[in-house]
């Protein structure tokens, strides 16, 4: 049985349907992420799990028991708020002790568990400090500690890393994964940052306008997006309009105007004659000088239009001879040789026959 089951939940605010017939089952111990642009309904789902909003239709079950009618203070669910919402009049230790005091724990137990949790988030020496004396990263840790100290069944995290700068964000991501593994509490994480979702989650639900577009493990979402929205939202992707020539269990033969034939991995539901899109990741495209004989099945001639040197990688914009513009990513593996192609160079553009995904829409 799933730890949390969201069954056919719809939530309206006036005439706006914020969440539309969403069903999600979250397993115990999972790091589950709701990913989507702002206004997609992810925070509304979080607030319904916490109990601050009630679904208009459908029901939420925790451990198989319906949650409706149970106020937030009675749910074994804690939240790490986007603004942290630390109590400014309480010290770090006082903030972390708060949920334990609410649960009526003994003085000794509170002291012991506050100290344990302070150690867990590496803030042993900050127990006596007030929130306004802490840095952003430290506040973040206190908010996490406060949410975890009483071991809720679920910890909800509402864009908790949004306010941190890039370096700190990356470090907190690593810490968050380690922390979740260590305490074993189920995390439900809300973010609009796709990289963060890929890095942290066991499973991701990609949301758009109140609906779940695709729910899967990060690598499947990334390699086999179900539609253009998911493909575009997660990472960078090239979209090529194609027509299916032949579909079999071995693979697809696609035709693109002015390019010729493209071999693609098999896709359920793709039938000969259908029109759709081939989604291709930039890192799957290989560029080589025209003098080298291409070894891959899919290879076309193109011209370098632009490039963006990013240090570790260089992103090329290359125009195929039918004027389709593709983005290709090349790792800069050799020292002292950052770029391999200049603007205007003719190149071979190639990718494997099992790269990319055919999208019906």
């Amino acid at each position, binding site marked *: 049985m799933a730890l949390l089951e969201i069954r056919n939940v719809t939530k309206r605010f006036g005439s706006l349907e914020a969440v539309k017939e969403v069903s999600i089952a979250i397993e115990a111990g999972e790091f589950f992420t709701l990913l989507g642009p702002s206004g997609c309904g992810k925070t509304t789902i979080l607030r319904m799990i916490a109990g601050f909003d009630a679904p208009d239709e459908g029901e939420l079950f925790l451990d198989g028991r319906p949650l409706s009618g149970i*106020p937030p203070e*009675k749910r074994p669910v804690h939240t790490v708020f986007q603004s942290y919402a630390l*109590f400014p009049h309480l010290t770090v230790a006082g903030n972390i002790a708060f949920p334990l005091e609410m649960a009526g724990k003994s003085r000794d137990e509170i002291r012991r568990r506050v100290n344990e949790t302070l150690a867990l988030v590496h803030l042993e020496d900050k127990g006596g400090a007030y929130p306004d004396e802490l840095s952003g990263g430290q506040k973040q840790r206190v908010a996490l500690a406060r949410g975890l100290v009483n071991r809720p069944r679920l910890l909800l995290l509402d864009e908790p890393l949004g306010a941190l700068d890039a370096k700190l964000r990356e470090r907190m991501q690593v810490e968050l994964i380690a922390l979740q593994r260590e305490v074993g509490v189920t995390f439900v994480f809300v973010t609009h940052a796709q990289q963060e979702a890929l890095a942290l989650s066991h499973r991701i639900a990609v949301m758009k306008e109140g609906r779940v577009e695709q729910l899967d493990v990060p690598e499947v979402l990334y390699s086999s997006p179900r539609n253009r929205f998911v493909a575009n939202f997660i990472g960078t992707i090239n979209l090529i309009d194609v027509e299916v020539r032949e579909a079999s269990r071995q693979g697809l033969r696609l035709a693109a105007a002015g390019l010729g034939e493209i071999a693609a991995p098999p896709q359920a539901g793709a039938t000969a004659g259908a029109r759709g899109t081939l989604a291709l990741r930039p890192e799957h495209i290989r560029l080589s000088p025209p003098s080298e004989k291409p070894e891959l099945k899919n290879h076309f001639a193109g011209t370098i239009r632009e490039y963006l040197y990013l240090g570790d990688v260089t992103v090329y914009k290359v125009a195929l001879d039918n004027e389709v513009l593709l983005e290709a990513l090349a790792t800069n593996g050799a020292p002292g040789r950052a770029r391999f192609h200049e603007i205007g160079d003719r190149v071979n553009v190639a990718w494997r026959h099992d790269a990319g995904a055919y999208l019906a829409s």
Partner: protein
Amino acid sequence: MRAPTSPARAPERLTRWLVTLPPTLFLVVFFLVPAVIMAAASFRQPGEFGGLAPLAQGGLGLEAYRFVFEDVIYAWILAKSFAVAGLTTALCLLLAYPLALLIARSPRRRRNLLVLLVILPFASNLLIRVYAWIIILGPLNLLYSPVAVIAGMVYVHLPFMILPLYTNLEKHDPALLEAAQDLGAGTWTRFRRVTLPLSLPGILSGSALVFIPVLGMFAIPELLGGTGDLLIGNLIKEQFLDNRDWPLGATLSLLLTVAVLAVAAITAGFARRRKEAP
């Protein structure tokens, strides 16, 4: 760059002086100088027909102080004034807190209207409003009693409690209450553990704004109180206007000032300790 004497900062310092000079001058002329005159007057002799006796004739002395400290009635009246001020402050707090909370939690657009209603009574004269209480309390047989004095005091000073409380409560981050609820706090616990402690600065400033003026107030006890409800404010007024004993009046008002400063210092110390508490 942060050296205050750097030439770049000189115009800024000049501006600062120009801005602070007028209020400083005003306070020196109309507050500090009178206070010194008052202090000096407390050591002189009353004039035959009021005012002060010429310095050459009366000289300086501690007669007024001796008079005050020898008669226990003055200490009693001061204590009674403190009790009235304390009770008024407590009642104002009890009445103002729920109202301030209500205003602070009402929709943003309605708040200004509600605040306007709170300060609306200031539009009419204080004495007229107190006279209105005579009309209300007369038929109830409560006029000229301590109840009438307290009712009048609370009525007049209530806005001074509501406004600082509202200003404080309105700034509270609603996310804190959600966080408290999320972590297991019920309605009453959320108030006791979050709203109340965060509003202490508002409670303290509101209390000071009520307590101190009430301590010196003479109009309300004079109009609503009986002959037995003499407070320190009335006593001082009497010395200057009726008894024509200026030195005694000066002494009493100096003692009142000292008492108020002591209360303010204790309050400030209390506020600071709370902030520093581990």
